């Protein structure tokens, strides 16, 4: 089956379902055993889950495997969703937890990222031109993010990409708020170096 065919199938699957329901309605139906509702949840949210996994892991195959595991865990736990937060927030947290569990199983330690040292070269060499050029484009940023050490990458993704606060990150990663802020700062500075190298 070609990718084009699959892409055509995806909208068809959603169209065959009832008029698109709210996430909460789909969750209630899925929790009651409605398989079609669960499938609709999958097709509505698989990209969000996969994107987060891909960025945190940096590996498409692992990202697919983790996405599969996230939806499997969602199937198991969907009855426990009470609607006191947005479903996307709940699913997001489930995804992050699965990725962190994956890191722990592999022995990836996030809180003590080895690094060649702080950025001591604070004396910035001004650009040759007085006109600042844009440092960032999306592709370059994606590439640079993938080159970050896992610990920096995780904190950066959670804070700057996914919008978690430092208090939430500290709870998730079991580090102090100060460590989360420090790791974020180092991640941003490292990204800046990587992006400048690409230019």
């Amino acid at each position: 089956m070609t990718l084009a065919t699959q892409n055509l199938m995806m909208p068809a699957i959603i169209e065959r379902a009832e008029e698109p329901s709210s996430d909460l309605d789909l969750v209630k139906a899925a929790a009651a055993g409605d398989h079609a509702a669960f499938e609709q949840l999958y097709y509505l949210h698989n990209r969000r889950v996969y994107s987060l996994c891909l960025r945190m892991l940096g590996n498409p195959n692992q990202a697919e495997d983790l996405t599969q595991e996230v939806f499997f865990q969602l199937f198991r736990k969907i009855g426990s969703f009470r609607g006191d937060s947005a479903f996307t927030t709940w699913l997001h947290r489930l995804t992050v937890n699965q990725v962190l569990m994956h890191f722990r199983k592999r022995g990836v330690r996030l809180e003590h990222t080895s690094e060649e040292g702080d950025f001591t070269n604070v004396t910035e060499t001004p650009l040759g031109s007085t006109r600042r050029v844009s440092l960032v484009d999306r592709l370059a940023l994606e590439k640079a993010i993938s080159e970050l050490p896992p610990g920096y990458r995780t904190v950066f993704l959670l804070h700057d990409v996914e919008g978690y606060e430092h208090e939430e990150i500290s709870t998730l990663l079991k580090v102090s708020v100060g460590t989360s802020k420090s790791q974020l700062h180092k991640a941003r500075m490292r990204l800046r170096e990587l992006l400048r190298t690409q230019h």
Partner: protein
Amino acid sequence: MNCTDCHEMISDYVDGMLDLGEQTKIERHLANCEPCRAVRDDLLQIVHFSGQLVMHAPPNPADLWQRIQTQIVAEQPRTATAQLKNWWQRLHSRDFNFSIPQVAAVAAALILVAVISLAVFKKSTDAPPIAGQGNGKEVPLGYNETSPEFQELEQRIRELKATVEQRKASWGSDLQSSFERSMVYVDQSLDESRQEYKNNPADEACRELLRNAYREKVRVLQGFANF
């Protein structure tokens, strides 16, 4: 404030997390320091574009959905399968020395447990109707039962049935009835296990269930072949 101090606080400044005093200090420094302004501007861009990254799609969402479904289905019969396996394993390790009625009663009870467990499993997975509903008739081999293991078990069953047929003539009606009842139960169990394995050929739990259903038929036939 020097550039080192500024760099330490620049991320919090970009995030708007400094108090008014710290914010004023850093802005005074930035007003007079082009390199630190460059750092600030770069971080602002990084933060801005990070919040706008597009979502990636899995290469094959439909295939991934199939994998998720397979994993869900594989999870559901596991509890029933584990219970059945425990029963069979414990029984397999014991020496039998029962009388005729005891053999028949034990066999029928075990098979009844298997049938009930499979019925619960079938109901929970909405399995399609199963052909050959335990009327004692042999169900043809499924498409995927060509492995040497299942072929050997089928061969053993054929041999034992031949022995039983030879001995049946000398049995009383009670024993014959007991045998027929046992075959109904054991064949129903085998039919259902076979159908589940056919529907889930990659599922090791279903394969194990089928294997145990075959072995149970062998054991029951062995018991009756000794009378």
